[in-house]
């Protein structure tokens, strides 16, 4: 399962970076979104994949009996997803404003702040 996950994560990183290097501003935002998904899945996989052992204490016991799935990476991912959601919502509004103000969605035409006038 870990092997499959590593290919999925690698694929997400690759496609995210590919999209970010396109000239279209919408693809840029999609690329950023894919990158953050890749990072989330990476955390998930790094927390070890455990099947069928939820981190619950059975009734009548005071501690868990067997090796359980680590709940902490899930908590981290949940936080990261919420943050990512907010940031991506902002990014989408930003590119909309950009398109309205600059009249283009081509990143190559947004270079006036890069070079000395």
């Amino acid at each position, binding site marked *: 399962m870990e092997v499959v996950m590593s290919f999925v994560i690698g694929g997400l990183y690759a496609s995210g970076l590919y999209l*970010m290097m396109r000239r279209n*501003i919408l693809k*840029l935002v999609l690329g*950023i979104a894919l*990158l*953050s998904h*890749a*990072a*989330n899945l*990476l*955390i*998930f*996989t*790094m*927390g*070890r994949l455990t099947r069928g052992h939820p981190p619950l204490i059975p009734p009548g016991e005071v501690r868990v009996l067997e090796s359980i799935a680590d709940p*902490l*990476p899930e908590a*981290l991912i949940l*936080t*990261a997803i919420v*943050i990512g959601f*907010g*940031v991506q919502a*902002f*990014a989408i509004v*930003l*590119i909309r*404003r*950009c398109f309205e*103000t*600059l009249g283009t969605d081509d*990143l190559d035409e*947004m*270079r*006036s*702040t*890069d070079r*000395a*006038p």
Partner: protein
Amino acid sequence: MNLVLLFPILIPFATAVACLLAWKQRHVQRVLSITGAVLLQASGFLLLVSVWQSGIRAVQMGNWPAPFGITLVSDLFSAIMIVMAGLTGVTVLVYSLADMDTGRESFGYHPLMHILLMGVCGAFITGDVFNLYVWFEVMLIASFVLLGLGGEKAQLEGTVKYVTLNLMSSALFLAAVGIMYGAVGTLNMADLARHMGTVKQPGLVTTLATLFLLAFGIKAAIFPLFFWLPASYPTPPAPIAAIFAGLLTKVGIYALIRVFTLLFVQDLEYTHALLLVLAGLTMISGILGALVQNELRRILSFVLVSHIGFMIMGLGIFTHLAITASVFYIVHDVIVKTGLFLVGGVVRAERGTYEMSSLGGLYSSNPWLSALFLLPALSVGGIPPLSGFWGKLVLVKAGMETGQYLIVATALIVALLSLLVMMKMWADAFWRDSPGSAAGGSVVSANPVSFESRLVLFCPIGVLGLLTLAAGIFAEPVLTVCSRAADQLLNTEEYIRAVLGGIP
């Protein structure tokens, strides 16, 4: 009392909420905003005194014992950074009373500034790597909105670049956090410091170090990763540019210094040597960029990048003296860069342009402004007795002691070139006659600044100018504090003991 650790987060948060409640009343917002910033500054001093007297302070949120809960911890370095954050907040907010358009002020300038300060202070004070990520995001989202606020053409272009690179840095940071959790099994920084040496694959630790270097390096704007900075910092209004230049890049440097003194000290030959190379390249490429620019704020942005190299240089040399110098240099750089960007704002208010080619004659029309520019400008160049001189002197001394002559030579050349850039600016914008006056016409301000607002504009810049002078004349006490901070950074036992208590 451990509440003193919470104030730097709670005060900006409460101020931001109060400002939001007073959304329609601009004047109420102004009063609240200034009060909040002054209180933040006071709480910073309180924290500094408390840490100075009783050593590193730590508090466990929700009473979950470390390493299970989130720890807030402040050593002297964090406390110094919070004082600097407070100082930048106060000066920039006072300045913006006179130089901030009503449009931006009524669309949440004040609450955003305080959320930004909250994120910055949170990043300085947290003792948990994932929590650091969260504070970074708080800071980033506030800075995104501040940068784009107003929606001018150049601003939006700058914001796209800034947002893209910072989100990429966040994704790298997040990945590094995930890998670190998988490898070490904890995210509490003190606990990580204890266990980092026991990781079985040393190659993995070095990979992690490089990932952190990339993530924080983008935020701190070091050599191959700084191109977003000159493309975005010159676009917003002066107060916003000033707080970004003064404070935000320093958060990246703070994070670099924190992880490369506490966590990644196993493979000094690789990590710290790499830092040193990057420091040298940052200095050179930044100052060469500054030499060819013709717009005031773009010159300042490149000088800012170049001087980030000096702070990384101390970290790369990694002796007690070098870390002392880095901490001192951060203090110095926050003061002068905020001051210079604010002076840039006044120049714009007086003349309506940032272009060097159409500036000139400011010395004859505004002698006081020229004096206020000259103080931080000479400090950047490293002229004694200003603070920039001592920062560079101690760095060079630390480099000589360890025999790193190449980086010392680089630093000295770059210091000289910085002086050249600043003096070129002085000659072009202040000293020479105005380009218009040669044709016989006298200099007319685009929109004359009234005496009262000029007073409000000059006060914060004057305070910053006097501070760089004071930090130079009374360098001894400042260096003593920085040296204690370096002690605490290098002797990680004290930090670990403060966070984890008696846990063996």
